[in-house]
């Protein structure tokens, strides 16, 4: 299988404090990978590293390219990172211009057509004529995600990038991301909200710069103790079913709401 991210024995420190020590992580192309990590576990640093903002050396390979100054331009074309706070990356213009600017960095020849196509599936049409700075923080996140997607990256890294978007919009956006994922886009989502796990097909647990678990999203139920000791919660319906299982209800871990309810009221 082709690998999109390879990190081998990678160490990184910030101001004398080791954030990653002999860190190894590989991601297969086409995966939708969710990395769960508590506050201060190194999520943002990892995102910055993948974009080539922090360290450039040969322990990291992205899309078969070593991360060194020579390859940096090529890597940044392939990897788009969307951060939680998008404000520093936006220019003072309308949303449409912002998207057109994002496209100007690619070799797309018909930006107008591409944006028109894009807005039919991505919930951003109502924002197009607005000024970027008059938007709410959640809307800014949407714009910044849209510009990243328009540039057709091979790997999309989300660093809590959907944290301010309200749930209904978030559902729509995730549906879109899942579609793109099926078409071959690799997605790496860094988050501290375990509710997000269920969207991915792979799940890793990051703590203090170490990956201490990897598996399928459902496996999170086994990690109750680890999550609690790191001040994280189980996804709501798994949490509920676990609590009910102490009283003899819900013997199995359900996959969704429906299964849970059917187990309670047979």
């Amino acid at each position, binding site marked *: 299988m082709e690998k999109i991210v390879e990190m081998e024995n990678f160490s990184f420190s910030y101001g004398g404090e080791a954030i990653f020590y002999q860190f190894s992580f590989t991601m297969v192309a086409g995966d939708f990978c969710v990395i769960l990590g508590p506050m*201060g576990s190194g999520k943002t640093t990892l995102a910055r590293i993948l974009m080539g903002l922090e360290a450039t050396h040969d322990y990291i390979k992205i899309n078969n390219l070593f991360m060194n100054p020579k390859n940096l331009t090529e890597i940044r074309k392939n990897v788009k990172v969307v951060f939680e706070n998008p404000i520093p990356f936006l220019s003072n213009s309308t949303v449409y211009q912002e998207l057109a600017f994002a496209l100007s960095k690619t070799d797309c020849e018909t930006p107008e057509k591409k944006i028109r196509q894009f807005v039919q599936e991505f919930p951003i049409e109502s924002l197009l004529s607005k000024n970027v700075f008059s938007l*709410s*923080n959640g809307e800014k996140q949407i714009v910044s995600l849209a510009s990243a997607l328009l540039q057709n990256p091979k790997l999309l890294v989300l660093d809590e990038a959907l944290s301010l978007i309200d749930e209904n*919009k978030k559902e729509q956006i995730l549906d879109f991301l899942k579609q793109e994922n099926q078409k071959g886009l690799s997605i790496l989502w860094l988050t501290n909200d375990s509710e997000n796990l269920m969207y991915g097909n792979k799940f890793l647990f990051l703590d203090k710069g170490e990956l201490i678990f990897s598996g399928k999203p459902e496996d999170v139920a086994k990690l109750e103790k680890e999550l609690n000791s790191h*001040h994280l919660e189980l996804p709501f319906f798994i949490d509920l079913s676990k609590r009910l299982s102490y009283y003899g*209800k819900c013997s199995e871990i359900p996959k969704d*709401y*429906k299964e849970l309810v059917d187990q309670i*009221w047979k």
Partner: protein
Amino acid sequence: MEIKMVNVGYQSPKGELLLDSVDFSFQEGKITGIIGPTGSGKTTVLDLIRLVKLPTTGEITMGKYFINSKGMQGNINEYYSNIGYVSADPKSRFFFHQVAEEISFQLEKFRYPMEKRTQQLERTLDIVGLDSSYLYRDPLSLSSGEANLISLAINLSYNPKILLLDEPTIGLDSFHKQTLITLLMRIRTRYQKTILIASHDVDFINRVADELLVLKDGKVLSSGPKVDVLKESQKLKECNISLPKITKFEDYVMENKKIRLGRRQEINDLVKDILRKS
């Protein structure tokens, strides 16, 4: 201090109507959660109260202070000492190299006696559940969750009567969320503060708020005591307002199994409810 909004509207310089005839009273000693989709005017409400924006129509009354489109009547310095504000992006408001300097700057601004300052520094962090090692950290090296808590701590250090929180749960894990909930509930009853929280995290709001103000496209969709607002969950759902997970689960059970569960805030109460009714 009660904050009374009468027919308040705000139009941006570009002509967009961000708030439209809002009538609402934020009560003293209560936590009011302001919820609504992105771009519904949550932050604008806070901006009006901290005088970053002036209402284009209507008026806001707070004790002896009065705000309308012409400005504010009263002593502005005194007014600001009554207002604590934690922004959604607190890091952009830090400008010292150490958290300690950041806190003492705030204390200095409000003329806190010099002798008491050092002692106050540690106490300030203690309130939000962070240890004193944070005093010597560089504010820019903090994660967004830590920065949020420290910004809240700084704001509490001068004891304002009104506390405005914009998306306070960003980057917080469940432990620190719980600390925040306990803290907010404690200061609201003990010090009779008026607390406003604008947040899209409806689960957090469901656990902490007493009152709800639901906004949609700048208009008030629903408002009042939380329990009453959530009773009309169907109406909120139709207007695309996100609901707390517990409320959604209760609605799902009602829809599919015709079993009515009470409106709960904590998962343990929900478990008890389920055991009783199954």
